[in-house]
């Protein structure tokens, strides 16, 4: 039932958010309400959740429920942040459409349905592209998005052809498995912006609506990653020279993405580009999970995907909050941001911790396990290298924040609480112009000026770009020289009788004055949840053991040939590839059983058309 509620909420919310153009208050409310319902419904999805549509059963699992809840919660958090920093009209509908597709993909027991639903979910990205740019210009991302949709959809359908296992006539069906593996790898690489498909991803800050990097680079690739990881061990764990070559290609792409993405995040100055490259670099771990081709990589990759969704959504929200607070997203203009918004600094540290962890933490173990299983021994140094690059990226942002504040940063609003109920302050602290524009005094003037500036001289106020720094006050009759001839323009707002101002309006004004603080608290909250997930909280570690129903079905499907899957054996024959299959089953990051063990909490294997393992040589 909860699954149907989730699908209904996503469908209705997406339509309700798209119909009113331009999106007004109703569309925002509909989007937020639908995301809330989807979040709650996803929390209720569990191993006992089932829904039959025709002859296909949608079966929930602990992991699919947690993943969908994590994605829907991230979307909800981002939309709430967007309420303060600028609402992108299509973020909520596109997110809901994507979540609906991912919900079907992660709960379907038919692999053809799952992969087609994943492809359908990827098409929602077109909604958030900026469509008013000149074709061919640098800010025109429509063609790139169209090609991305085509590549992802075609590759996933091609993979579906292979994993559904037709009765191939040839002596070996390795080529079709190679095509399927490359299809999954291509879909993941293109959608997550891996090298060499990184340019459209880096330009998303200009070619897509604000904050939509989370949808295009995090949520959709992560959902596809969950699908791909399931197939990695069961379907592609065969020995074949051609498949080894394909695995090597994916490994090269993953390594290049890991290194170049990390380096690119160090040399760019735009926050959107830094965030995009940071996300792209971390998405390489999903490719590594696909290339590992072993059950041992399933659990760490699932845990990593949860942390990836939460932490990178937090990073996108952090970028939006900083850009809104200081009205710039260029790092050169953001010197000293940390001094003005220390809570955002705390959030950035939490995001870094959620992404990297520390030795002994689940997310740290997941990253190290993925690299150990997917790459040969000579490339194990990349684990340390990725950590160093990520630390350098986050450290660079923090160092810039600790520098002497620029003028823009100094005059922008801080996180200091402001109240609209304070008694009037001396007149000199407020800078009042003829047009009754009241400007906040810079931080150096201390709070007296700011508070006095924040006083509500008249009931009607309009929040500007920096709501807490500049408050435009509509001329009130009491403030006019005619009605108050003895009062100068400076003193008019302050001398207005306090009783005349409604308490409710003061409360609203206080809410607006503290917009930066509210957004910072939201981002801190999201980053904290990301840390909790990354460290195995909310049942993440336990859920990661089991995966989605398709994994269970794939493992339960009998093989067609007597030879077992070439799971890691102590005396594995070296294969001519960059990454030989691991010689021993890699230790999991937790003491939990491997995913191949029948999970006690998962549903019984359902009748499915999932692929059987095919052993050809």
């Amino acid at each position, binding site marked *: 039932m909860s699954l149907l509620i989730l699908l209904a909420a996503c469908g209705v919310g997406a339509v309700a958010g798209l119909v009113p153009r331009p999106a007004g208050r109703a569309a925002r409310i509909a989007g937020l309400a639908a995301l809330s319902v989807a979040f709650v419904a996803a929390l209720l999805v569990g191993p006992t959740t089932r829904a039959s*549509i*025709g*002859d*296909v059963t949608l079966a929930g699992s602990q992991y699919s429920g947690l993943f969908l809840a994590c994605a829907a919660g991230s979307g909800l958090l981002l939309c709430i942040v967007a309420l303060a920093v600028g609402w992108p009209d299509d973020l909520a509908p596109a997110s809901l*459409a994507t979540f609906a*597709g991912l919900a*079907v993909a992660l709960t*379907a027991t*038919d692999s*053809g*349905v799952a992969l*087609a*639903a994943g*492809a*359908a979910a990827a*098409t*929602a*990205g*077109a*909604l958030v*592209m900026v*469509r*008013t*740019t*000149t*074709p*061919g*210009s640098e800010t*025109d991302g*429509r*063609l790139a*998005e*169209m*090609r991305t*949709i*085509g590549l992802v*959809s*075609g590759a996933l*359908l*091609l993979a*579906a*052809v292979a994993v*559904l*296992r*037709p*009765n*191939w*006539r*040839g002596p070996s069906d390795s080529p079709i498995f190679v095509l399927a593996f490359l299809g999954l790898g291509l879909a993941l690489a293109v959608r997550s912006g891996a090298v060499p498909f990184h340019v459209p991803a880096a330009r998303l800050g200009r070619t897509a609506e604000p904050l939509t990097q989370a949808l295009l680079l995090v949520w959709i690739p992560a959902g596809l990653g969950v699908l791909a990881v399931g197939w990695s061990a069961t379907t592609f764990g065969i020995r074949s020279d051609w498949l080894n070559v394909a695995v090597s290609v994916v490994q090269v792409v993953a390594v290049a993405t890991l290194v170049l993405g990390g380096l690119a995040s160090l040399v760019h100055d735009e926050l959107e580009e830094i965030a995009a490259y940071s996300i792209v670099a971390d998405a390489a771990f999903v490719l590594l999970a696909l290339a590992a081709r072993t059950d041992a990589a399933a659990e760490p990759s699932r845990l990593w995907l949860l942390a990836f969704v939460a932490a990178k959504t937090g990073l996108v929200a952090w970028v939006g909050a900083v850009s809104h607070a200081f009205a710039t997203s260029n790092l050169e203009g953001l010197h000293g941001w940390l001094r003005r918004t220390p809570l955002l600094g705390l959030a950035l540290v939490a995001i870094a911790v959620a992404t990297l962890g520390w030795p002994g933490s689940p997310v740290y173990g997941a990253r190290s396990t993925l690299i150990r299983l997917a790459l040969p021994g000579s490339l194990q140094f990349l684990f340390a290298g990725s950590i160093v690059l990520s630390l350098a990226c986050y450290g660079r942002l923090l160092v810039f924040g600790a520098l002497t504040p620029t003028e823009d940063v100094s005059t922008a609003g801080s996180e200091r609480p402001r109240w609209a109920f304070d008694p009037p302050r001396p007149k000199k602290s407020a800078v009042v112009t003829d047009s009754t524009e009241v400007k906040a005094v810079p931080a150096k003037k201390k709070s007296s000026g700011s508070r006095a500036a924040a006083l509500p001289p008249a009931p009607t106020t309009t929040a500007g770009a920096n709501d807490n720094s500049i408050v435009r006050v509509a001329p009130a009759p009491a403030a006019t020289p005619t009605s108050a001839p003895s009062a100068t323009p400076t003193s008019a707002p302050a001398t207005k009788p306090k009783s005349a101002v409604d308490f409710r309006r003061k409360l609203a004004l206080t809410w607006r004055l503290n917009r930066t603080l509210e957004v910072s608290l939201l981002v801190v909250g999201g980053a904290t949840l990301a840390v909790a997930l990354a460290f195995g909280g909310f049942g993440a570690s336990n859920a990661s053991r089991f995966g989605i129903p398709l994994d269970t079905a794939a493992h339960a499907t009998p093989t067609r040939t007597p030879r077992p899957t070439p799971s890691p054996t102590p005396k594995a024959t070296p294969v001519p590839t960059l990454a030989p299959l691991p010689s021993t089953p890699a230790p999991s990051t937790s003491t939990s059983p491997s995913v191949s063990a029948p999970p006690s909490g998962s549903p019984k294997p359902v009748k499915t*058309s999932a692929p059987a393992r095919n052993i050809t040589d």
Partner: protein
Amino acid sequence: MIQLAVVAAAAAVIGGVAAVTPRDSRLVALGLLVAMVATPLASSREPTGLAVAFRILGAVLAIYLLWTATRDRSIESEGSGIGATAELIAAAAAFSVGWFVTPVTPLTGPVAAQAAGFALIALAVAPLAGRNVLRVGAGIVLLLLGISLLLEAWVGEGSSLRQVVLTVLLVGTVGATSLLLSPAEATAAERVDAAAGPGASDDRDGDVQMPGAPEPEEGATDEAAETREAVAAPRRVSTARTSKPRAPRANRVAASGGPVKRAGPVDDATPPLPAPSPQPAPAPNRARRPNPRVQREPRVSRKARESTEPKDSGQ
């Protein structure tokens, strides 16, 4: 007796050819509609009524989205670079290959579905490499249709939920195409016509003044320099258009000189100076006539206008 699947497969291929060959968006939409409607009929020997009805409903919805996005904006596809006949021959060749090869034995679905799948995939390759959103979208839809035909020919007719999801995927793809066909795309088509005129807007290269744009800084007030600037504008546009790969249609329009001729006002206004480009003979012009719905007054930049008017020095 000719089976329904064979007829539907042939119709799907013809629809595919119609979707990738013409430049008129209405014909593209019509071709896609034929292909999308015929595909479910070709994919099974005994298609399920409900699944076929759902697929057809989805096809109509998808094409309606595309139709509404293109009807008022005169959006055009690039059209085929090799012509309809060549596209048809290529599709027929791929169809024949698909008819005779047997990669899967026994074939679960009709062989016509496999043949049509091969043909549609072959038709989709060239559009996917194009730079026109509509053409790329049509190519993606044909690719998905082709793969779905192969899927059902090799694996068998899928479950009803798979049909639903495939329909959603196709509607989503066509919807994405129609969404990404923004009005800016229409101005691109107009720009091909208008850019030939002096002062025409082409902000892609950033060196051509937009009509109504603020004047440049001081220093550019020299009369001779302004005259040179006004004359150089069409040349720069011309260079810009040839410096990067353009659509075949744009190249044909540029070669035919038709729209360039319409940019006459400024050419006439600067008679002593050489014409920016040679005027070819008005003989057979393969360029498509501009749509009257988007035809506008020839735009002349303020700079070019000032260069033709007597200068008021103010001294």
